């Protein structure tokens, strides 16, 4: 077991190195550099930048270094825990990413919990009440959930919330709490702002997982061991929740690995609409501004998240299903 985890971790590090290299390569592909973007901005504002100053900036940011040198510099600094200074704001990259990533992760975790809490019982209900009206309704909502993009749902909820409930939904805190330290009131305000984001993020995933749960449970309910359990005299509820659900839950556990990172980055568009300070829009801005240190670091972090998620999912799966051996 420990051996297995160790091997997976080593494999993960190898993959991350490859990801960072390829990712960094893709990110620096667009012609031009962050400096061009900045200089252009300055010139548009009417300021003229003297030639020798440009030269000095180029030297400082190393924009003319060959790709491999840039990459190695970035890796070396990252290894020292210094993720570099963002070209955009001159702030430490690490600091900015952590702030945003924690909001993203928090939102996604809540969304994930919501997804599970809703999709398992509804999937079970739908499967055990097949071809009844509630089942059709659930199926219909599932298809809507699959077909309606999250950002649109965000937009619709935004309209309703502002129009009919007179609620401020954009952002993470109301303006009056912006600079205050954390308090119960601020926390409640945050909850008030974020529940829509959680709901929107979770909706699509919930629809998908409910479908999977229903289909799997229907399969499992045809298995012989379900009859065995009934033949023992167990209550139908025990038969379903103890014997059937545990066998039907595999894909949901596996989805944990991909769902969490997918939620973390999937909020890019939702965050755009709801103006949330999460990692998605930040990544997008970094890409647009060709801030490759920032973008590269975010990409590698998300990739690490994905790999860790997959590992956790595999471990959890082995715990749920004794037939799976970790080798």
């Amino acid at each position, binding site marked *: 077991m420990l051996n297995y985890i160790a091997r997976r971790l080593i494999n993960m590090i190898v993959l991350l190195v490859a990801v960072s290299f390829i990712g960094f390569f893709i990110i620096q592909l667009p012609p031009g550099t962050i400096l061009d973007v900045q200089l252009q901005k300055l010139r548009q504002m009417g300021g003229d930048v003297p030639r020798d100053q440009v030269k000095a900036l180029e030297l400082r940011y190393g924009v003319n270094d060959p790709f491999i040198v840039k990459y190695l510099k970035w890796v070396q600094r990252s290894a020292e825990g210094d993720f570099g200074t963002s070209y955009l704001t001159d702030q430490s990259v690490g600091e900015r990413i952590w702030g945003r990533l924690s909001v993203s992760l928090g939102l996604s975790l809540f969304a994930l919990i919501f997804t599970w809490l809703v999709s398992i019982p509804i999937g079970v209900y739908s499967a055990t009440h097949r071809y009844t009206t509630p089942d059709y309704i659930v199926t219909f909502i599932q298809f809507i959930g699959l077909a309606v993009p999250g950002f649109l749902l965000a937009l619709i909820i935004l309209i309703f919330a502002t129009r009919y409930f007179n609620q401020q939904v954009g952002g993470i805190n109301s303006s009056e709490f912006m600079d205050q330290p954390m308090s119960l009131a601020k926390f409640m305000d945050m909850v008030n702002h974020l529940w829509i984001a959680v709901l929107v993020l979770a909706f699509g995933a919930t629809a998908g997982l409910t479908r999977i749960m229903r289909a799997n449970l229907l399969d499992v309910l045809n*298995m012989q061991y379900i*009859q*065995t359990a*009934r033949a*023992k*005299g*167990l209550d139908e509820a025990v038969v379903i929740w103890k014997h059937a659900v545990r066998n039907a839950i595999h894909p949901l556990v596996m989805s944990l690995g991909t769902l969490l990172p997918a939620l973390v980055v999937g909020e890019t568009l939702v965050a755009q609409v709801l103006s949330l300070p999460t990692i998605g829009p930040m990544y997008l801005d970094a890409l647009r501004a060709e801030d490759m240190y920032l973008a590269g670091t975010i990409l590698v972090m998300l990739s690490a998240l994905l790999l860790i998620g997959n590992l956790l999912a595999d471990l959890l799966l082995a715990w749920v*299903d004794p037939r799976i051996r970790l080798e």
Partner: protein
Amino acid sequence: MTSQPTTPITTTADDVVRVENLKVNFYTQLGVVRALNGVSFNIPRGKVLGIVGESGCGKSITGMSIMQLVTSVGKTEGGKILFNESAGGNPINILDYERNSPEMRKIRGNNISMIFQEPMSSLNPCYTISNQIEEAIRLHQTNDKVESRNRAIEVLTKVGMPNPDRIADSFPHELSGGMRQRAMIAMALSCTPTLLIADEPTTALDVTTEASILDLMRELQSEIGTSIMFITHNMGVVAQMCDEVAVMYLGRVVERASVDDIFYEPRHPYTIALLQSIPRLGRTKGRLASIEGSVPDPYSRVNGCPFHPRCPVAIKGVCDTILPEETIVDAAKGHTVRCHLYS
């Protein structure tokens, strides 16, 4: 033919279960399937009754009906299933209870238990053997964890599990097919049921394992005194296991007799055809007999005797119009048959 001693049965025998005119229909998307068209038979206390027939004749459905485990598309349309727990007691009609009612659940696994055909899939892969056996014990016998564990080990020992302590903590996928079927039997016998329904318990096993499982069942049967309803399509297994036999065809019992009578004095043309299609040692010449035609489409209804389209001795104008009634051919031995030849 058979080495089992058989005692003649009397019509006044004390029955564990008496099924009367049981009708079950399946309402499927393609139409109504009349799975059981009035099945009647009895299981004498302490005996092994074999239910024989081709696939699709309704023998498994009959077993499931007694447990009330038929899936929800199957509806019981009539008849009675009288269950009498102890000799001289008052029989209860199982069909009076709801499928998932507490009364029904008290009977299941406690008074009547069941083992299935596929040992590979009849145990839940996610739980250990002892967990699954203890579940039944705790449900019906004792709440005590230590005691239920001890009992589980005890039944595992009884079914001849080598190393029962270790087996108890293994998962089904770690055991062979024969071991799993032993575990299933242990689970079914854990609450010493009055009746055990065995639905083709050895069909999926290889011949040597089959023999040892049959020996085990026979042994436990005489030791505990449980009555067994043994569902099979294998005449050889019938000869080895059963005291009495009910032959089923298309949802009806067509012949009912002691095992000796079935093999030596079969009456119904279908039973005779079944026996003729068994290959025998020493008979080297000639083709093996087979039954002409095939089982009719389950959605259609056959007029008259359901076997007449395939029957070599069908009487024109009688067998294809009138459904034969159950006729007693030997009252002393309880031999009955549903055929116009004997009415």
